[in-house]
């Protein structure tokens, strides 16, 4: 199945509102668009427990003993890869790391063959990052275990969206996103983080604002125009309107490596017009939560003094990333225990 094949372009389905204690039923985690609100709540609750484990003298439990987790990254990454590895090890899983550039992939092995090989080597779960949108969906069709999408192209980054949500809830009074103004600022065009966050945040009732130069907002207009029952979503290039009374501000990296010429006049102009500075921050709520998924270009999308401001939770995001990924590995493991293929 290709991502989005089950929904007409530009239409956000209404969030599933009925919160029931539904058990976890997803074998793969490819994106957050298939998660109901109660499933998101289950991830958050499980993450709470994992955070507790991280504070113990020995931050390790035997829950995934005997599980083989393969981390297969076709794209550069520090925090996501290390965070998944630490998470798997904290749960006592056995971890194998494959960097595509140092594997048979460089000899031209296809993705499907690579996945079959990893399965034959005994992997129960594969955490995968790929530069092509939808690649994990193809992997999920051939793999007998669980695929966790660690980021695919411009499409989705589900574990990041869930750790962002967890971080926001732990900082916002009352721990709820309901009616909160959450602003995602920057290069949303190339951002899988923005796309996945849009699903979880609107599902949890947040008032989401996407802000950036109009050249970087393409593709979102259709979503914003259609909207959907129960999901609030505004698209704007007006940075002062977006920042006004914001409860959460998430700056996104200007992805230089993906910046085709002509989308921005210059990085300096972007920094001047959209960069998150102390001055701009004054328009937001006094307790605004400042976030950035990293890696940062300091002085471009976020000023250095904003990144280390007491209201910044950027390092919390990294710590919470481990806990969220422990929760995801744990929940997914339950759907195919026994043995792959059995």
């Amino acid at each position, binding site marked *: 199945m290709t991502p989005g094949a089950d929904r007409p372009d530009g239409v956000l389905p209404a969030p599933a509102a009925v919160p029931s204690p539904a058990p976890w039923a997803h074998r793969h985690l490819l994106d957050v668009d298939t998660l109901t609100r109660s499933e998101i709540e289950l991830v958050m609750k*499980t993450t709470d427990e994992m955070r*507790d484990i991280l504070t113990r*003298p020995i931050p390790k*439990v*035997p*829950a995934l003993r005997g599980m083989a987790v393969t981390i297969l990254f076709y794209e550069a990454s520090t925090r996501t890869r290390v965070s998944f590895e630490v998470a798997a090890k904290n749960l006592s899983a056995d971890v194998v790391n494959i960097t595509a550039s140092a594997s048979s992939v460089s000899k031209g092995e296809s993705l499907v063959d690579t996945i079959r090989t990893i399965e034959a080597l005994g992997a129960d779960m594969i955490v995968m990052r790929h530069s092509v949108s939808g690649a994990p969906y193809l992997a999920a069709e051939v793999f007998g275990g669980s695929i966790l999408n660690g980021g695919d192209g411009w499409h989705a980054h589900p574990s990041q969206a869930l750790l962002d949500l967890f971080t926001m809830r732990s900082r916002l009074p009352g721990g709820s996103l309901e009616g909160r103004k959450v602003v995602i600022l920057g290069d949303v065009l190339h951002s899988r983080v923005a796309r996945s966050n849009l699903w979880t945040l609107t599902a949890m009732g947040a008032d989401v604002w996407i802000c950036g130069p109009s050249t970087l907002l393409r593709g979102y207009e259709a979503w914003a125009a259609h909207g959907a029952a129960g999901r609030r979503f505004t698209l704007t290039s007006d940075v002062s309107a977006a920042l006004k009374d914001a409860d959460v501000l998430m700056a996104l990296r200007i992805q230089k490596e993906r910046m085709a010429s002509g989308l921005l006049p210059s990085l300096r102009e972007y920094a001047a017009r959209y960069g998150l500075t102390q001055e701009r921050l004054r328009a937001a709520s006094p307790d605004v939560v400042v976030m950035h998924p990293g890696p940062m270009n300091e002085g471009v999308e976020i000023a250095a003094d904003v990144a280390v401001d007491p209201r910044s939770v950027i390092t919390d995001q990294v710590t919470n990333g481990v806990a969220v990924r422990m929760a995801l590995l744990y929940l997914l*493991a*339950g759907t195919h*225990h026994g043995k792959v293929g059995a």
Partner: protein
Amino acid sequence: MSGRRIMAAEDVRRAVTRISHEIVEKHGGTDGLALVGIQRRGVPLAKRLADAIAEHDGVMLPVGALDITFYRDDLSLVAQQPIVKGTDIGFDLNGYTVVLVDDVLYTGRTIRAAMDALMDFGRPKAIRLAVMVDRGHRELPIRADHVGKNVPTSREEVVHVLVEEVDGEDGVEIARLPDGRLTGGAES
């Protein structure tokens, strides 16, 4: 949850009182004593034991809650991951004599998992075990130090300890499982 009632609310209350005395007697006082309840019904039982000890010995012992989900040996056998209910041990258990509290002692596997979990929090001086019901059928070399009631059962039966904090009433019921299903070793 309908079955034959084998302990009434009053019996449960009396058992808690008796066990609370036994715990202090066996330990020779309350110094260095702590209680840890196993989620879910062991937690309110531990709290009640602590209250009873506070009443007759005038000392409020530290009480913790332990979730053993991540330590179960049957995670690979159950169809769905059990929902985690939370561990909360707000004291340093190094050097304490820790009394584990649970509702039903059955195969002993829960207690094995609980001991592993406790060890990850430190090195207790000793671990003891108090349960409301011992129903037999042990699969591991584990025994309880304090028992509310010994109940001979068959594997086709299931024992429910009801506590007011969770079930709205106190009591112990025994019921027969439908169509020859066996109780797995998982739950107790």
